[in-house]
């Protein structure tokens, strides 16, 4: 049953991610990215991470993608990406990256064929709910949480300063 939900979601997410890369217009890429994030929210729900699934929809598919759309429409970008292809100078770099990613994939498969990861742990009913994750966030991880708020404040100030006036 879980397989029947996981594979369509994963397939749709991967195809939409490919469309993000190979779409001609930036606005089409943004729409495909929203679809991919909704698919990933479905995967999170399948993994019983309800709080993160809600955050994925609100923060990513909502706030961040609206920001992308806003900037694309503000800059009035045409399809000026017509001549894109692999940069000749970067062929070595690209091959090295591909080899690295293949190595990572191999290592992941190697590690996780361990029997320990074959089936999920039996989790309590309230696993991944807002209550449990929030309790962990405000007790064990309260310092990182506060640092994250300072980071967001700094990013806000930085964005305002950068976009405010002309750069000399």
């Amino acid at each position, binding site marked *: 049953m879980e397989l029947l939900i*996981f594979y369509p979601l*994963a397939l749709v*997410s*991967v195809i939409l*991610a*490919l469309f*993000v*890369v190979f779409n001609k217009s*930036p606005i089409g*890429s943004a729409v495909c*990215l929203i679809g991919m*994030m909704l698919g*990933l929210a479905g*995967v*999170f729900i*399948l*993994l019983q*991470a309800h*709080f*993160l699934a809600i*955050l994925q929809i609100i*923060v990513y598919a909502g*706030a*961040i993608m609206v*920001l*992308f759309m806003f*900037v*694309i429409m503000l*800059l009035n970008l045409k399809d000026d*990406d017509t001549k*894109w*292809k*692999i*940069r000749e100078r970067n062929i070595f770099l*690209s091959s090295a990256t591909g080899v690295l*990613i293949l190595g990572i*994939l191999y290592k*992941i*498969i190697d590690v*996780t064929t361990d029997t320990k*990861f*074959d*089936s*999920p*742990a039996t*989790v309590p009913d309230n696993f*991944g709910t807002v209550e449990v*994750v929030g309790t*962990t966030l405000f007790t*064990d*991880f309260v310092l990182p949480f506060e640092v994250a708020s300072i*980071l*967001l404040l700094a990013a*806000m100030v*930085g*964005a*305002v300063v*950068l*976009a405010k006036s002309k*750069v000399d």
Partner: protein
Amino acid sequence: MVPLTHYLIFSAVLFSIGVLGVLIRRNAIVVFMCVEIMLNAVNVSLIAFDRYLNQHDGQIFSFMVMCVAAAEVSVGLAIVIALFRNKATVNLDEINLMKW
């Protein structure tokens, strides 16, 4: 039940697509979107490990990843706007002021 390996392979495939996009696209905004794909792929593997090890630390970490992604996108798009004011392009190959 889905084995953990499938989630990890799914995450690795998404990450590779993101890297591919960063390497072959020249539009700065599309490159940002591909960075978002990579961050999301990492979130998938964090949450999958969480579920299979019955812990909450990975979800907290992926929450922090979302915070950093929001900060990164706001600052990055502000930089793109500032660059567009200066050079009237978002083509990354033409923005080589600091290259050498």
